[in-house]
C-alpha cells in the first residue's frame, strides 16, 4: 500500500470523497488536540503548582462554579454538533451514488469475493474498474455477514445474507488498492481479501475484451501454476512433492487408487482441479484441495493448456522466492508478495476438529 | 429520606428482622424496592421477546395472522380469566394476612395455586394440540404420523391457498402425514388474500414469493417464526408461573404456621407482587398471540 510518506498517517486518497473523510479526520484530530492540550497542561501545572507542601494541609474550599460548568457544557456540545454535522454530510455523500454509476454485482462467501460486471466479466477477489467512472456495487452474501472494505477509497459496507447492500465510489487514481473483508466471518476472515485495480480507460477496455497483458494461454497457465495458485508447491518436484508429477501426464494412462485406470485427457485435468478427491492417483494421498469457485473458465483453460505443454523431462520450476505458495493448512498466503492471495484449503465446515485445522491437510507446511 | 435511630447494644429483634436492618420499616422498604427492581428487570427480559415479536409481526402480518388463527382463543381466553381471578384470590390472601386471619389466608393461597395449576393444565392441553398438529417449530418434536392406508399425501397438485386449513385433524380421513415430525403448514390463503387486495408489506412481497409465485414453503417458514415466538414467550411465561407456584408452596407453609399478621406480612405482599406481574405479562401475551387475525375468520379483510 503506498503511503504519502514514511509516517503512516493515512492511506492514499483514491476516490472522490476520500479527501472529505480525511478532512473530517484532521478536524477531529485538531479538536482533540485543542481539548487535550489545555487539560493535560492544566493537570501538569496544577499538579506541580499545588502540590502538597506540608503534610495534611487541605486545599482551598471551592465548591464549584456555575459559570464554568455552563461554559464547559455548552462549548463541548456545540463542538460535538459540528462533528455530527460534518460526519452526517460526508456519510450522506458516501451513501448516495450519482445516477451515472456502472453497476458491479458482488457476492461474498466464505472466504472469497465474486464480482460480476454488467458486461459479463467475472472476477474472483479482484475488481478492475476504469479511472474516473462511478462504480456502484450491489452486494450480497451466500452465507454469513462479510464486509467489503476499501480503505484507500474510504468506504465499506457490510454484506448481509438475505438482502442487498450497496456501496459506491469514483476512483481518481490508477493503481492497485486493497480490498479487505471487514466483518469477522470465520476461519479465513484474514485471507478474504484482494485487490481493486483502477485502470486507465484504454487498459480497462483491453482487459474487458479478455486480453490480459497479451499472455498466451500456456503462459497464463504457467503463471497460475507457479505463482498465483501455488500448484507448484506440491507438483513441482523437490522435497515438497506431494502431488503427482505432471510432466508427460497428458495423454498417458493413469492408475487410480482403488484400482481402475483413466486416460489423462482434457477432462481429466479439469476434473483434477475442480474435484481432486474423485480421481486420486495411486500412491498419493487425497490431500489436494479443490479449486472450484476459485478459477474462472478462462483460467481453467489456461491451466489445462499448460499441463498439456509439460513434456517429460521438462523441469517445472519450483516456487520462486517471491511467490506465495499458500500452505494447505488454514493460514492465509498473506505475505503480500503475490497479488492474488488465494487459499485453496477450504475448511470443511463439518469436519473441523477442536484445534480448527483442516484434517485433510498436513500440518506444519513450511511454505515460506 | 430515612432517619433511623441508633441501635444500642441490646436490641429487641422482632421475629423476621434481619441483622443488617435497624428496624422493620427499613427492612420492609428494602424488600419492597428490591422486588420492584426485580420486576422491572423481568419486564426488560420479556421486552426483548416483545421486540422480536414487533419486528416480525410488522414484517409478516399475514403469516402471523394465519398462525394466530390456529391458536384456540377459547383456551387462551379461559386462561386469561383464570389468571385474573387468581390475582383476585392473591390480593385477598394479602388482605387476610394483613388481618391476621390464618385460615382464610391459607384458603386463598390454595385457591390461587389451584388457578395457577389450572393455567398450566390448559397450557399443557394447548401444547399437546400443537404437538398433534405439527405446529411445534422444532423438527422432530411433532407427532410422527405415517398416514393411514389410502390416505392422500399433502395435496400435491393444489396451490397452497386452496388447501383447507393448515393441515387437517389427525382423525380426518386424509392428510396429516408427518413422518419426520416436522413443522407443517400448508395453507397460505391469507397471503393470497393480501396479495389480491394489495396490502402485502414490502417484506412480504419478497418473503412469501419465489419466481413471482406464492411459495407455500416460504410462507410456512414465516408462520413457523410465529410459533417459535409463541412457544418461547408462553414457555418463558409458564416457567415464571411454575416458579410462582413454588413460591406459593412456601407461602402456604409459612402461612399455615401462622407467621403473618398485621405487623409482619411483607413476604405475602411481595409474593403477591410477583404473582400480579406474571398475570400482567399474560394480559399482554394473550391479545398479541391469540387475537391477531380473528377478523379474517369471519370473512373480514
Amino acid at each position, binding site marked *: 500500500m503506498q503511503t504519502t510518506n514514511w509516517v503512516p498517517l493515512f492511506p492514499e486518497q483514491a476516490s472522490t470523497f476520500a479527501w472529505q473523510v480525511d478532512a473530517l479526520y484532521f478536524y477531529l484530530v485538531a479538536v482533540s488536540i485543542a481539548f487535550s492540550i489545555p487539560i493535560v497542561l492544566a*493537570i501538569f501545572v496544577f499538579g506541580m503548582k499545588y502540590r502538597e507542601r506540608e503534610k495534611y494541609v487541605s486545599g482551598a474550599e471551592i465548591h464549584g462554579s456555575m459559570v464554568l460548568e455552563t461554559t464547559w457544557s455548552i462549548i463541548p456540545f456545540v463542538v460535538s454538533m459540528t462533528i455530527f454535522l460534518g460526519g452526517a454530510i460526508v456519510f450522506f455523500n458516501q451513501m448516495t451514488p450519482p445516477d451515472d454509476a456502472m453497476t458491479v454485482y458482488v457476492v461474498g462467501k466464505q472466504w472469497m469475493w465474486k464480482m460480476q460486471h454488467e458486461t459479463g466479466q467475472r472476477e474472483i477477489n479482484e475488481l478492475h474498474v476504469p479511472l474516473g467512472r462511478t462504480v456502484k456495487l450491489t452486494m450480497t452474501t451466500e452465507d454469513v455477514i462479510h464486509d467489503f472494505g476499501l480503505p484507500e477509497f474510504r468506504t465499506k459496507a457490510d454484506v448481509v445474507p438475505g438482502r442487498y447492500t450497496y456501496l459506491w465510489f469514483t476512483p481518481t487514481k490508477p493503481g492497485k488498492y486493497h480490498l479487505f473483508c471487514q466483518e469477522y466471518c470465520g476461519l479465513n476472515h484474514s485471507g478474504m481479501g484482494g485487490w481493486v485495480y483502477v485502470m486507465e480507460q484504454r487498459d480497462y477496455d483491453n482487459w474487458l475484451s479478455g486480453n490480459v497483458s497479451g499472455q498466451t494461454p500456456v503462459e497464463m497457465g504457467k503463471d497460475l501454476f507457479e505463482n498465483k495458485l501455488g500448484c507448484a508447491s506440491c507438483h513441482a518436484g523437490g522435497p515438497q512433492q506431494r502431488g503427482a508429477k505432471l510432466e508427460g501426464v497428458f495423454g498417458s494412462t493413469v492408475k487410480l487408487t482403488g484400482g481402475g485406470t483413466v486416460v489423462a485427457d482434457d477432462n481429466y485435468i479439469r476434473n483434477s482441479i475442480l474435484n481432486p478427491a474423485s480421481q486420486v492417483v495411486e500412491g498419493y494421498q487425497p490431500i489436494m484441495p479443490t479449486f472450484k469457485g476459485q478459477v474462472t473458465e478462462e483460467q481453467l483453460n489456461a491451466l489445462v493448456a499448460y499441463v498439456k505443454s509439460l513434456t517429460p523431462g521438462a523441469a517445472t520450476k519450483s516456487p520462486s522466492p517471491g511467490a506465495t505458495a499458500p500452505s494447505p493448512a488454514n493460514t492465509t498466503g498473506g505475505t503480500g508478495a503475490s497479488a492474488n492471495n488465494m487459499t485453496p484449503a477450504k475448511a470443511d465446515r463439518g469436519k473441523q476438529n477442536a484445534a480448527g485445522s483442516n484434517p485433510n491437510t498436513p500440518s506444519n507446511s513450511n511454505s515460506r | 429520606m430515612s432517619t433511623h435511630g441508633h441501635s444500642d447494644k441490646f436490641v429487641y429483634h422482632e421475629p423476621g428482622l434481619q441483622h443488617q436492618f435497624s428496624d422493620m420499616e427499613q427492612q420492609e422498604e428494602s424488600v419492597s424496592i428490591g422486588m420492584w427492581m426485580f420486576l422491572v428487570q423481568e419486564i426488560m427480559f420479556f421486552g426483548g421477546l416483545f421486540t422480536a415479536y414487533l419486528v416480525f409481526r410488522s414484517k409478516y402480518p399475514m403469516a402471523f395472522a394465519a398462525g394466530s388463527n390456529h391458536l384456540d382463543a377459547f383456551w387462551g381466553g379461559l386462561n386469561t380469566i383464570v389468571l385474573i381471578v387468581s390475582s383476585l384470590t392473591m390480593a385477598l390472601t394479602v388482605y387476610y394476612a394483613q388481618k391476621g386471619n390464618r385460615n382464610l389466608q391459607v384458603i386463598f393461597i390454595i385457591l390461587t395455586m389451584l388457578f395457577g395449576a389450572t393455567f398450566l393444565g390448559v397450557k399443557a392441553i394447548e401444547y399437546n394440540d400443537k404437538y398433534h398438529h405439527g405446529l411445534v417449530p422444532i423438527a422432530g418434536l411433532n407427532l410422527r404420523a405415517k398416514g393411514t392406508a389410502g390416505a392422500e399425501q399433502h395435496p400435491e397438485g393444489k396451490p397452497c391457498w386452496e388447501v383447507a386449513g393448515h393441515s387437517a385433524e389427525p382423525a380426518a380421513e386424509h392428510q396429516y402425514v408427518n413422518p419426520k415430525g416436522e413443522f407443517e403448514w400448508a395453507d397460505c390463503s391469507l397471503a393470497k388474500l393480501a396479495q389480491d387486495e394489495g396490502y402485502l408489506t414490502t417484506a412480504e412481497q419478497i418473503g412469501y414469493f419465489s419466481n413471482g409465485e406464492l411459495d407455500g414453503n416460504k410462507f410456512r417458514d414465516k408462520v413457523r*417464526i410465529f410459533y417459535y415466538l409463541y412457544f418461547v414467550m408462553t414457555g418463558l411465561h409458564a416457567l415464571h408461573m411454575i416458579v410462582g407456584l413454588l413460591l406459593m408452596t412456601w407461602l402456604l407453609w409459612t402461612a399455615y404456621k401462622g407467621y403473618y399478621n398485621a405487623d409482619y406480612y411483607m413476604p405475602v405482599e411481595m409474593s403477591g407482587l410477583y404473582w400480579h406481574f406474571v398475570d400482567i405479562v399474560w394480559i399482554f401475551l394473550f391479545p398479541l398471540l391469540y387475537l391477531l387475525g380473528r377478523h379474517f375468520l369471519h370473512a373480514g379483510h
Partner: protein
Amino acid sequence: MNAQDAVLETGYQSGIPPVNYLNIKTTLASWLLTKDHKRIALMYLVSVSVFFMIGGLFAATIRLELLTPASDLLETGTYNKVFTEHGIMMIFFFLIPSIPAVLGNFLIPIMIGAKDLALPRINLISLYIYWFAGALALYGLMVGGVDTGWTFYTPYSTTFSNTYVMIVGLAIFINGFSSILTGLNFIVTIHTMRAPGMTWFRLPLFVWAHYAVSLVMILGTPVVAITVLLLAIERVSRVGIFDPSIGGDPILFQHLFWFYSHPAVYIMVLPGMGVVSELISNFSRKKIFGYEFIAFSSIAIAVFGFLVWGHHLFVSGQSPYAGMVFSFLTMVVAVPSAIKMFNWTATLYKGSVSFDTPMLYGLGFMGLFLIGGLTGLFLGSMGLDVHLTDTYFVVAHFHYVMVGGQVIAYLGGIHYWWPKMTGRMYSEFWGKISAMLVFVGFNLTFFPQFLLGYMGMPRRYAAYPPEFQVLNIFSTAGASVLGIGMLMPVIYLVHSLKFGKPAGDNPWMLPGLEWRTTSPPPLENFATPPVVTWEAYEFGEGSGLDLEEARRRAAAPAIL
C-alpha cells in the same frame, strides 16, 4: 462525649484491630457461606483476578501472533478462538464485575454508614451465580472454546461456527443474573440503608456512580440475557429469528445485542469514574469541583447510554436516517463525560496534591480516558466511522477507555482501599514503578493501533499485509511492558498481606466515612453506627479530623 466524637475517636487507632471481619471466623464454611459483604468482595477480587489473568494470557498470545504478518504462531482457527475468548473473559468475567463487585460491594455499605448491604443473601447468590457461570465458561473454553468473536454475530454463530457457542452463550446468560442481582442490591441499599445524616448530596461520588451503574445493570442486562438465550436455542434447534435462511433477520440480533452491549461499556466505565472522583478529590485534599454536576452526569450517561446503540451498526445496512439519530445522540452522551473531565481538572486547582500511587492511577485515567473518549467522537461521526469501523482504530479506542480507563481506575481503587480492606500498606516504591510502567506500556501498545486503523488494518485478522508490521511490533513491545506493569501489583500486594506495614484506620487522613473505622473494619463495619454531620469531601473545619494530632503521630515513629 457525644456520638460523633465516639466515631471520630476510633480514627486514631494504629495497627490492626485484634478482631476484624477477616479473622472473626476462619473456617472454609464461614467464607463460602458468608453474608458479609466484605468477604464476598474479597472472594470476587480473587475470582476476577483469575479471569483477568486468563484474558491477559490470551492478549499476550494475540500480540505475539501479530508480531509477524503471517498466521504462523497459531492457525487462524485457533487465533479466532483466542481473540474471542479474550473478549469474553475480559468483558463478562472481569470488566463488568470488577469495580462494582469488588470495590462496590466492599465500600458502599461502609461509605453510607450501614452494617451491610440491604440483601446480603442476594449478594451471596450473586457470587455463586458468577462462579457457576465462570466455571461453565471455562469448561467451554477447555473443550474447545468459541470462535465467533465476543459479539456472536449471526448467522455465523447460529449456523456456521463449529465451536461451543451454546455452552459459552449459556455461561454468559447465567452470568447476567449475577450482574442484575448486584445492581438490584446496590439500588435498594443506597435508597434505604443510609446512616442518619447521610443525605443524597452527602454521598461520595463513588456511591452515585454505582447507583447509575446499577440502573444500567438492571435495565440492560436482561436484554442481552434473552438475546443470548434465543441464540442458544436457535443454535441447538435450528429454528429461530436470526438466521435468514429460515426467515430470520441477522440485523435484529445486532440491534438486540448492542442494546445491552453499549450500555455495558458504561457499566464498565462509570464505576471507574466514581473511583477517579474519589482519588482526585482525596489526593488533592480538596472538595471535588462541581459535585452535583458530576453526580448528575453519571445519571445522564446511564440514561443516554441506552439511546446510542445504533452507532455500532452504521455500516450494517441500517437505515441512514436511523444512523443520523444515533450519531447525534452519541455526540450528546459525550458531553457529560467531558463535564466530568473538566471538573476533575478543576479540582486540582488550589489543591494540596500528593502523588501517591492511587493518585498516579487517577491522573493516568484522566489522560488515557481523554484520548479514549475523544476517539469515540471520531467513531460517532458517521462519515469517518465508515472508514474506521472494524479496523484497529476501534480496537485502540475501546482499549483506551476500557483498559486505560476502567482497569487503571480499578487498580487505583485497589491500591487506594487496600489498607482499608487488608489493614496493610503495600510498598509505595513498587506501586509507583508499576503505575508508570502500566501507563507507558499501555500507550506504546495501543497508540500505534490508531494509526494502523486509519491505514485500514482490519480487526480480528490473524494475518495482515506486511506494510502494517512495524506498528504491530511497537504494539507488541508495549504489551510486554504493560504486562510486567500489571503483574507487579500481584506480587507486591500479596507480599504486603504478610509483610506490609499495618496501615491504621486512616493512613492518608481523609474525611470519608470509610476512613472512620478500623482497618480492616469490624464485622458490622462500625463499632458504633455513625451519624453523619459533615458534607462530602469535607476537608475543612467541619470534617472533625484532628490534623495536628495526625501530624504529631506521623512525625513520631509508630509504636505497634
